[in-house]
């Protein structure tokens, strides 16, 4: 049985798709056969981030409607042969998703894959609800600003009440925090919320802090997940995230930024 991960946030533009692509690639690189599904029907992006947009023939909705088999629609990643992408349909909207259809696709993928990453659309409507409904784990992607934290908090409420696990009274979805676009300079100057501020409201298991980094944008434009850019801080941070998710203990980095050397020496935050 595959472990189903939903990458969600409520708010748009916080880095869900970047995160989905990075952790799916990271899991595959670690030797786990992984599928990543774009639930953002009508606003397909994941294929661009993973650089497979020119190989899309069939999509998620085709599979749900029985117009294509899963194997026809899955695209194998060119960088890692254990990673497969199921793209969203660009010409349809979220209403094309049905709980039954999504359930069937996930069930079939579960037979073959170790991990299934569901890239949720923004919002709390049908697409987002179906992306999280079948999840075992949730990566809640949050930016260090108050509206993103509020939306993540709302999403956590939905995760704990509207998922299949909640409906069946099973063990709840395991929720993890991923703090993205973290700019330690701006945190220090008080323009951004700190990790502590965010955790005061969300109090979740922290999987990692992804520093704001130019390499994210250039990686997206190039269609190569940023996790493959081993030189970039964001890439390293995502590598840590995957390792922690798989059970490794790694200290958190990038909280204080590069200039935080003195702070670390003289006892800044932990």
């Amino acid at each position, binding site marked *: 049985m595959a472990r189903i991960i939903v990458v969600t946030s409520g708010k748009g533009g916080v880095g869900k798709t970047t995160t989905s692509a990075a952790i799916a690639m990271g899991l595959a690189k670690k030797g786990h056969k992984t599928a990543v599904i774009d639930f953002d029907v009508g606003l397909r992006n994941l294929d661009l981030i993973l650089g497979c947009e020119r190989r899309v023939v069939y999509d998620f909705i085709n599979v749900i409607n029985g117009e294509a088999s899963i194997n026809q629609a899955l695209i194998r990643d060119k960088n890692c042969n254990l990673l497969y992408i199921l793209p969203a349909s660009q010409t349809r909207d979220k209403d094309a998703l049905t709980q039954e259809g999504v359930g069937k696709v996930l069930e079939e993928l579960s037979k073959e894959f170790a991990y299934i990453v569901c890239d949720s659309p923004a919002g709390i409507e049908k697409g987002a609800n179906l992306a999280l409904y079948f999840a075992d784990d949730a990566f809640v992607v949050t930016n260090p600003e108050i509206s993103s934290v509020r939306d993540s908090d709302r999403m*956590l*409420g939905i995760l704990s009440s509207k998922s299949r696990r909640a409906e069946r009274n099973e063990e709840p979805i395991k929720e993890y925090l991923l703090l993205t676009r973290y700019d330690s300079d701006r945190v220090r100057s008080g323009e951004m919320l700190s990790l502590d501020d965010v955790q005061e409201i969300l109090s979740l298991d922290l999987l990692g802090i992804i520093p704001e980094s130019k390499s994210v944008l250039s990686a997206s434009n190039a269609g190569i997940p940023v996790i493959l850019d081993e030189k970039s801080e964001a890439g390293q941070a995502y590598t840590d995230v995957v390792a922690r998710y798989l059970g490794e203990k790694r200290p958190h980095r990038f909280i204080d930024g590069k200039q935080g050397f003195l702070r670390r020496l003289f006892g800044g935050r932990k």
Partner: protein
Amino acid sequence: MLNTLPVLEFKSSTFFAPSLILFNKDIAAIEQALQEKINLAPEFFRDSPLIVDLRELNKQNQDVDFVQITEILRKIGFFPVGIRGGNEQQNKQAHSLSIPIDTVREQGSPIIIGETHKQENIKQSPSQPEVTTAKEPIRPAAIPPVSAAATLITHPIRSGQRIYAAGDLIIMSQVSAGAEIMAEGNIHVYNTLRGRALAGVHGNTAVRIFCFDLQAELISIAGDYKTSEDLNKQMYKKPVQIYLQDHALIIKEIA
């Protein structure tokens, strides 16, 4: 897998709404006063359901046109969903506007719409003197006991979630901004309270709210409420208890 679900189901449920008590029958004055209140907290009042309480007016035999009241409320953005203590004419008007009628039986009568719309209650005159005595400070003996068992919650209450407890409500985790916790009895939050907490929602004025860290958006006991703007800044982020004394919410630090 869910093919056998029935088409519908009736369940008893409780609906919480603020009541608007009118003291003056001058429509223009009412409208102006409402507008001033709304300007203080526009978000809080937007699209809010409302029970129109005419007991005070009818006690003074000030007859007001319920249709006109409804019109201005709707114009301003309220949803009148009930009338309480209306006279025969006003109740008739409410009925023709499809607004449920709640008649007053005693202090702390529940705001359960639907259930209170009973024949025997409608006959009762709201201008009877019992209502006046009930306005006075309540002796502990007169307080209806909270009968239902306490509800214990150990997980966080997130933004957008609503919790309702028929008795006391005990929460061991945080209550986020944008969450709403309601209890007919007392509310205990052994953590940070950032959302809305409404105790004594059936009118029990003897109940209290306790929390370890007060950052609430709104607190209410038996319908008397304060928004975070009105909260004493000195109590912010403090462990407090909140109770009602002569219709005033008292917030006291727990030393």
